């Protein structure tokens, strides 16, 4: 039984990754799961300099999911390389570094800086975070801006580049095509859907940032649809995510067209979710005699 998948020349022992920002750089969840069993660790978004993020409250629960407005707090690329990448050196799993920025230059700085880091297998460019005022999502909601930033990043990147797309768009296919046309090696989606919660008793927004990004099982049908649309619009691999909680959910994304999948908010519900997804995929394959996970990709009729 083969669960290995390949994206832009990089091989993953299985298609199960984590959603950036939901798993730190793996330290915290290494108390619960064996990181060696993951297809890849995708790190929390890192910028050229430290970012303080948004004021609290930054998270709130909603029906079947949550909203977050962390605002991409991160210690900056220097600390990240020294501490987080060092930590990951000891593990036999792929490392995908998620990159954020306020201007194209910010992104380029991080991408260049990571070019010589051997521990970094791929870069994931977050142009879809709804929780920071400047940059970020603006690139992910306009196909020309997306094309522009993608091609500029591709010029300097030494590792393959995944563009992470926003679901907050009219046409995900157009965005996927723009990323592909600009040379992206893969796309990942969905990032969170912008949502809002109001505390009616205090007449206040539940989040200090007013809006937050929605994630969790509640968004899965939207994510599956977008993964289906995007993977039918482009020829580059798609990494699917949005509410994945089980092996069956992962199979659903793979059938919709995803080459790999990521577990995000459900890590918070159950810190063992990634392992259950890995095992769930295998047990589905055993049950239906699927020899190669790659045979399931896009097989829905």
């Amino acid at each position, binding site marked *: 039984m083969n669960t290995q998948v390949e994206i832009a020349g990089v091989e993953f022992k299985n298609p199960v990754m984590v959603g950036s920002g939901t798993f730190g750089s793996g330290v915290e969840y290494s*108390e*619960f799961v064996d990181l060696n069993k993951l297809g890849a660790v995708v790190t929390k978004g890192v910028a050229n300099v430290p970012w303080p*993020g948004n004021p609290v409250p*930054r998270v709130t629960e909603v029906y*079947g999911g949550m909203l977050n407005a962390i605002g991409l*707090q991160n210690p900056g690329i220097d600390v990240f390389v020294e501490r987080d990448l060092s930590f990951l050196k000891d593990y036999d799993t792929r490392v995908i570094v998620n990159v954020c920025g306020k201007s194209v230059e910010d992104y380029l700085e991080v991408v260049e800086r990571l070019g010589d880091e051997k521990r970094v297998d791929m870069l994931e460019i977050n142009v879809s975070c709804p929780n920071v005022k400047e940059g970020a999502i603006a690139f992910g909601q306009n196909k020309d801006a997306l094309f522009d930033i993608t091609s500029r990043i591709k010029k300097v990147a030494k590792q393959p580049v995944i563009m992470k797309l926003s679901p907050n768009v009219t046409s995900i296919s157009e965005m996927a095509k723009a990323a592909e046309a600009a040379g992206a090696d893969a796309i990942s989606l969905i990032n969170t859907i912008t949502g809002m919660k109001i505390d009616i008793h205090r007449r206040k927004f539940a989040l200090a940032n007013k809006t937050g990004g929605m994630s969790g099982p509640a968004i899965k049908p939207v994510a599956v649809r977008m993964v289906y649309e995007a993977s039918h619009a482009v020829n580059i691999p798609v990494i699917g995510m949005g509410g994945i909680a089980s092996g069956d959910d992962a199979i659903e994304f793979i059938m919709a067209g995803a080459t790999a999948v990521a577990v995000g908010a459900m*890590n918070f519900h159950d810190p063992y979710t990634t392992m259950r997804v890995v095992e769930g995929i295998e047990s589905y394959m055993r049950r239906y005699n699927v020899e190669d996970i790659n045979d399931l990709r896009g097989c829905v009729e």
Partner: protein
Amino acid sequence: MAKKAKIEARVLSQSILAEGIYDMWLETELAMDAHPGQFVGVYPANKATLLPRPISICEVDKEKSALRLVYRVVGSGTAEFALYQPGDIIMILGILGNGFPLEAAEGKRAVVMGGGIGVPPLLQTAKELSQKGTEVTAVMGYRNEETFLSDDFKKYAKMVIATEDGSVGTKGNVIDAMNENSVECDVILACGPMPMLRAIKQYAQDKGIKAYISLEERMACGVGACLGCVCKTKEADHHSHVHNARICTDGPVFDAEDVEI
């Protein structure tokens, strides 16, 4: 410290301490590593609500491998918890957080201070300090005469009570009660609403004593991964490098001097 885990726990008992305040004992192996001031994440069975509810450890019974949680019903999760019966199996995540630095209080004139639903975590704190021979004063603030847990505190501490409506003890807050009872101390261990914690921070600063306070914030992961639960710190902390400590992992207990509240 032992590894964290999400595991089953068995409800041993459940009772009502005051209006809307419940007292639940859980049998769980997590009890073996529990320190006062730490907390667990309790998962509602309701599948519409997926995040664990952070609830402080009120008391530990290592012989029975049991934890006591005392909680106020405020929303759908705690309302569900209130329905649990002895024998029910629930899921919890723990042990979370750092807990109170007992060593900073041992052998000193220690005061444990709690307000409202901040009272419970101080019980195990008082208990362990007193077991280690430290004389403890418990200064607890309540809304009214429903002074839940005060009988428990009396086993381990000299008890001083403040109530908002003056029905028991000092009318006013915990600081008023400190003053009225001329409680002198070297170190304060506290948990309660933010205004109370601010007042304690000020009080400690004025008196030149140490105060360790337990903070609260909305949490998602509870284990330090999501960066949801931060509080501003004076110094750039080792983890965030941006003056944002994680309450769930770097806290919930902080040296009052270190946090900007």
